[in-house]
């Protein structure tokens, strides 16, 4: 007989998902899955829309990382125009995208995962949140809020709106940066830099406390994918789309225009989220991970001084150890640091205040593909248009999707280690959720195709009868 535990909804993740854990008569975990339970249909209903509407429309896939969608979508639209966009526009888009990464990473680390890390996996669930953390360490909580606020303010100062700005458009951005906005952002940089350095100091000692988790939090060899500069430094906008293998060896630089030759998508009956895989290895062998862990496992250097130092320290860990998804948290903090430094750098480029920020053209190509690095990993928008620029077809591969297989497998790995079917304790299940949190899955993104993800843990017997449910509904 098998029992199934359902965790529904998975909390402190960005979206609706649930986890089911199957347990045999002896109380051993025999299987576990992660389910995304929402589907929204963007690929379908964008049909017929004018392509210039796509960036703003696609931003509505996700309120956490709308900018990444804006950027990927606008890049696809640039291809439809077949123009080179002004350098200033590129740099402004980069700032916006990185600012978003900072706020999103801050959200993931401080609002969603820090309660586990700081208060402990077995802490009182009622306290295990940002408010509990605020009680325990007000300054840390305030720092987290400040960091996220910084990112959001940069977005607002550039685009006029924190969430779903329309500023990134086909051919560039709609308005130049104002000197006032630039000064305001630069003025905040020292403070947030310090906050991030403090956060790293807080985090690194935690590694030793979570050795057990590190071992099983989706700790297995996979390939990694992400954008990277040809010189091996971090990149979230341009660069090449690279795949490395589980040993860190270069596998392939993918031409985004031919992504379909390298990346396939599989459907699992139990989830609205599809599972992309590396085609040459097939499904499910072609498993890979994306996001900060992938980016920093691939990078030879960050490209900014403080982040380079931090990266060096991270890379002093064994390669094998760095296969654990627990290190998503670590790499996230390093990327925040990189982001702040990079924003500063970009704001100091010579033409950043140029008013030439948009290339004007009509539709000149029938197909466009745009890639960007979202906080959670590679984001790919692919559009086809008719001769007048009306969308005829769209496909989106979103960051969280790439990690779907790893999350599913990580849930199983963690459940197997921590869940005892004879005596279920909340802390066990929280660890199963926590592994999902390491990936910081963006389930509104993942469900662009339709739907949402509550967390739901179900205990089922072999015949599929539900014995017990732990769920949030």
């Amino acid at each position: 007989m098998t029992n199934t535990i359902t965790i529904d909804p998975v909390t402190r993740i960005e979206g609706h998902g649930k986890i089911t854990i199957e347990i045999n008569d002896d109380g051993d975990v025999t299987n576990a899955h992660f389910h995304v339970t929402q589907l929204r249909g963007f690929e379908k209903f964008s049909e017929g829309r004018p392509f210039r509407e796509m960036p703003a429309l696609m931003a509505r896939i996700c309120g956490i990382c709308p900018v990444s969608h804006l950027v990927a979508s606008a890049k696809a639209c640039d291809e439809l125009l077949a123009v080179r966009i002004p350098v200033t526009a590129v740099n402004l888009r980069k700032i916006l995208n990185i600012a978003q990464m900072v706020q999103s990473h801050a959200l993931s680390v401080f609002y969603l995962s820090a309660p586990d890390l700081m208060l402990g996996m077995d802490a009182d669930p009622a306290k295990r949140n940002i408010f509990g953390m605020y009680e325990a360490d007000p300054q840390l909580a305030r720092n987290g809020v400040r960091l996220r606020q910084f990112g959001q303010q940069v977005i607002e100062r550039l685009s006029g709106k924190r969430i779903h700005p329309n500023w990134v458009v086909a051919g560039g951005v709609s308005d130049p940066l104002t000197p006032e906005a630039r000064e305001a952002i630069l003025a905040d940089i020292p403070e947030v830099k310090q906050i991030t350095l403090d956060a790293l100091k807080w985090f690194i000692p935690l590694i030793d406390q979570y050795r057990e988790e590190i071992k099983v939090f989706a700790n297995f060899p996979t390939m990694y994918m992400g954008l990277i500069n040809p010189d091996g430094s971090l990149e979230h906008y341009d660069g090449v789309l690279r795949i490395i293998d589980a040993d860190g060896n270069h596998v392939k630089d993918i031409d985004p225009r031919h992504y379909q030759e390298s990346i396939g998508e599989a459907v699992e009956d139990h989830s609205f989220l599809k599972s992309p895989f590396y085609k040459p290895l097939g499904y499910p062998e072609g498993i890979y991970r994306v996001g900060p862990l992938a980016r920093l496992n691939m990078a030879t250097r960050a490209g900014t001084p403080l982040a380079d130092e931090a990266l060096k320290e991270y890379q002093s860990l064994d390669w094998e150890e760095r296969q654990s998804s627990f290190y998503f948290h670590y790499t996230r903090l390093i990327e925040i640091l990189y982001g702040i430094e990079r924003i500063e750098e970009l704001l100091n480029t010579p033409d950043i205040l140029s008013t030439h920020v948009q290339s004007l053209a009509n539709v000149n190509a029938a197909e466009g593909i745009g890639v960007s690095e979202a906080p959670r990993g590679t984001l790919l928008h692919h559009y086809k248009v008719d001769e007048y620029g009306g969308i005829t077809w769209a496909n989106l591969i979103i960051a969280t999707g790439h990690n779907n297989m790893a999350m599913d497998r990580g849930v199983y790995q963690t459940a197997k280690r921590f869940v005892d079917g004879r005596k279920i304790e909340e802390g066990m299940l929280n660890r199963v959720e926590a592994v999902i949190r390491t990936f910081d899955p963006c389930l509104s993104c993942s469900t662009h195709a339709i739907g949402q993800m509550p967390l739901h843990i179900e205990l089922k017997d072999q015949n599929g009868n539900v014995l017990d449910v732990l769920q949030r509904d």
Partner: protein
Amino acid sequence: MMPVKTFKIDGQDVSGREDETILEIARENDIFLPTLCNIAGLKPVGACRLCMVEVAGSNKLLPACATRVQEGMEVTTNSERLQKYRRMILEMLFVEGNHICSVCVANGHCELQWLAEKLGVDHTRLNYMFPAKEVDVSHYRYAIDHNRCILCTRCVRVCAEIEGAHTWDVSGRGIEAKVVTDLNTPWALSETCTECGKCVQVCPTGALFKKSRAVGEMVKDGQFLPYLKTMREVDNA
């Protein structure tokens, strides 16, 4: 000499020539009346019913845009009943089409959206009809998204009355009505369109827009109409 009438709007004494409408006099006196089909410079059609007012002694509501002023009339522009009806009219427009303000080219520059905010429409109790309406992006400069069309017919009138091309008209009827170019041909294939763009500028929503504009970027400018009319009169005089 055109006789002048004196009357009251909301208790305020006002005056107007006998060929002027209540709406014109209200505007002249900074008394707000919402309108969507009406635009200065085009013939009034009295279709949107937003500018309905109460006139003492008449149990019928009258459209201010199409009602001439009369001596001694007492007009009320903003009773509770009128406000309720106006909100419902706006709700009707929202449920009839697919007005997704957030991703509309005219977001922030839309008369419908602005009126909803101004009249306090924060939701609608009516049933969203979610019709399957078309978008015609065939024209190289302009596009029309029928999802956002409120059938005010400003485009039809500006094209016929001012540009003189009469490229636009309304086809079908009732809830199926829609504006068309020529024989419902794609805009790009219209033989009569002069590509002047007046229809785009007078459109109160994001239904007609320049294709070069992204979400929130389509700012309309209907102000040219009175200018055109006046200049034409000056030249003809």
